[in-house]
């Protein structure tokens, strides 16, 4: 009996250590921005909002949020449009090699791309004249995310019975009316998930804008935060923590949305 109690206590201590290791930075993120003497340790001191006001006084900090929004929205639109059109075709029409094509796309976008592909992507953007432009960043980030989005959307579309579309056609609607009235509303949840995921990934992407953008006025928040130093070259922790909290909020909200939407199941007018 004692033995069991002892091992139970050991388990709890072990788990507590692991949990605090992971949760400490999160607590730091929510406490430090409000601290009058921000440091790397978690201490609130006198609560203050002065760190936030210094963020809003820094013009670079403010417009970089705008840049982040431009890039993230651009990536989201491009991904949603391309991925949903492609996923519809992959889901509804089986042509020779279609599965292989998806496999190859996923392989090259997820496994081969990223850091390894940075140099060729950089060269590509130079030769396309897209270096130091939002468009170059949007294309590059979206290009990396679209294959996975196609794959996720395809599985989602596969779960929507084809007979809804067929019923709409038989009822007299044209293909575009069918897509608009029937297919789009039915696939709304899947598309929202893809939109949220691509928004979050574009919002959080540091490497691609850092490499492809060269003028500070075009930097998104993820790159700007890298430049918050005092005149002596030390990191300005008050500014960084306040900025980090603001930068995190859209992502947190995004994840909450995904979580709510992902809790779906498919109910329908299909008797099974």
């Amino acid at each position, binding site marked *: 009996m004692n033995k069991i109690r002892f091992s139970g206590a050991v388990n709890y201590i072990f788990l507590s250590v692991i949990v605090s290791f992971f949760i400490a930075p999160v607590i730091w993120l929510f406490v430090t921005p409000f601290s009058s003497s921000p440091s790397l340790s978690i201490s609130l001191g006198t609560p203050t909002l002065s760190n936030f006001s210094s963020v809003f006084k820094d013009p670079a900090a403010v417009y970089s949020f705008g840049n982040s929004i431009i890039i993230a929205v651009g990536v989201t639109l491009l991904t949603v449009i391309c991925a949903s059109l492609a996923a519809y075709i992959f889901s509804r029409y089986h042509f020779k090699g279609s599965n292989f094509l998806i496999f190859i796309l996923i392989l090259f976008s997820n496994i081969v791309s990223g850091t390894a592909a940075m140099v060729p992507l950089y060269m590509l953007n130079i030769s396309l004249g897209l270096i130091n432009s939002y468009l170059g960043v949007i294309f590059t980030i979206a290009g990396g995310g679209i294959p996975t989005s196609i794959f996720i959307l395809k599985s989602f579309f596969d779960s929507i*019975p084809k*007979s*809804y579309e*067929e*019923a*709409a*056609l*038989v*009822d*007299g*609607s*044209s*293909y575009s*009316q069918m897509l608009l*009235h*029937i297919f789009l*509303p*039915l696939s709304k949840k899947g598309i929202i998930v893809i939109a949220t995921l691509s928004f979050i990934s574009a919002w959080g992407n540091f490497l691609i804008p850092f490499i492809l953008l060269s003028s500070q006025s075009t930097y998104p928040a993820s790159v700007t935060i890298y430049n918050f130093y005092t005149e002596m070259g030390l990191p300005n922790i008050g500014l960084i923590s306040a900025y980090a909290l603001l930068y995190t909020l859209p992502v947190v909200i995004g994840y909450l949305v995904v979580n709510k939407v992902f809790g779906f199941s498919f*109910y*329908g*007018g*299909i*008797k*099974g």
Partner: protein
Amino acid sequence: MAWIELENITKTFGKVSAIRDLSLQIEKGEFVAILGPSGCGKTTLLRLIAGLEVADKGKIRISEEDVTFAPPNVRKIAMVFQNYALYPHMTVFKNISYPLFIKKVPDDEIKKRVNAIADSLKISLLLDRYPQQISGGQQQRVAVARAMIQTPNVFLLDEPLSNLDAMMRIEARSFLKYLLDKIGTTTIYVTHDQSEAMALADRIVVMQNGIIQQIDSPKDIYDKPSNTFVASFVGNPPMNLLEANININSAQAEIGSQYLDIKESILNLHKFPQNGRVYLGIRPEHISIYHESDTNNGSTLEGEVFVSEPLGFETIITVILGEQQIKVIKFGGLNNLKPGEKIKLQFKKNKIYLFDHETGYRINEIQEEDNEY
């Protein structure tokens, strides 16, 4: 010219040929059932008429218009899907009105027509609900309402009753027959349930492996099956098919080690296969159990009861005849036959069918209304 004409239709999916050189004509106002086991191509045939599949070869005409390559939305058809395919994001009202909404019918007229049809189908109280909030039987009615709200050239129904439980099915079947009789639209009804086809249709098309086996009225499909497939598919239980050898000289069929007298007139009229090998067909209701007290003394076959299944009004008795099995229906009263019991069976002579052992085609003509044993 027929209202719907299919001319030499062929459709293959990869290496599987679903429909093989099929021709069919359907008159205006006719109710045709397409009957066959799963995978026989009956749903493919319906989808070809609907325009949801395109034929590899052949022509399809609806009301004298060539629609072989026309998309579904211009064919003026209405279809009830096997799974009903009610739009889950729309209320029952929106579902029923969708075909009218597409045609830009004014709102007040849509309202009027939906209410009228909902009244006749007894679904008026469901109009604000979503498909997932109503029962299977109600979903079926909504699907029928959505199809009926249009005035289509042809009404296509793909196994509309198969998702209902047994009790609902019989009720929905009667209702459907009443409704379709009333509107009188040309109807094509796909089913694998022979009793549905028999109960509803003016004509039945029996299909197997993408080929039409027989097109006839329900009565003729039942009484004059053209081959062993139709004979063994229609009827509940279906026709018994016994392997037999016909001896033309003695006018007897050798079944296992027993002999059964058959009508000489059958033998005189037709050419038999050289070796005399046939399938002898007899429906379960045309067999009677012979009692020693019976006055007539036609030839009998002796068998052993395998199992007896009382169903209330009738009892289905499975009897072992040598190495073959045969089903017998005994009407009225419960039967107390025990497994293993020896019984003698008598066949109605004029209800004996002979089918070629090789090709499966029926050899003899069937004469009506003769109950001689």
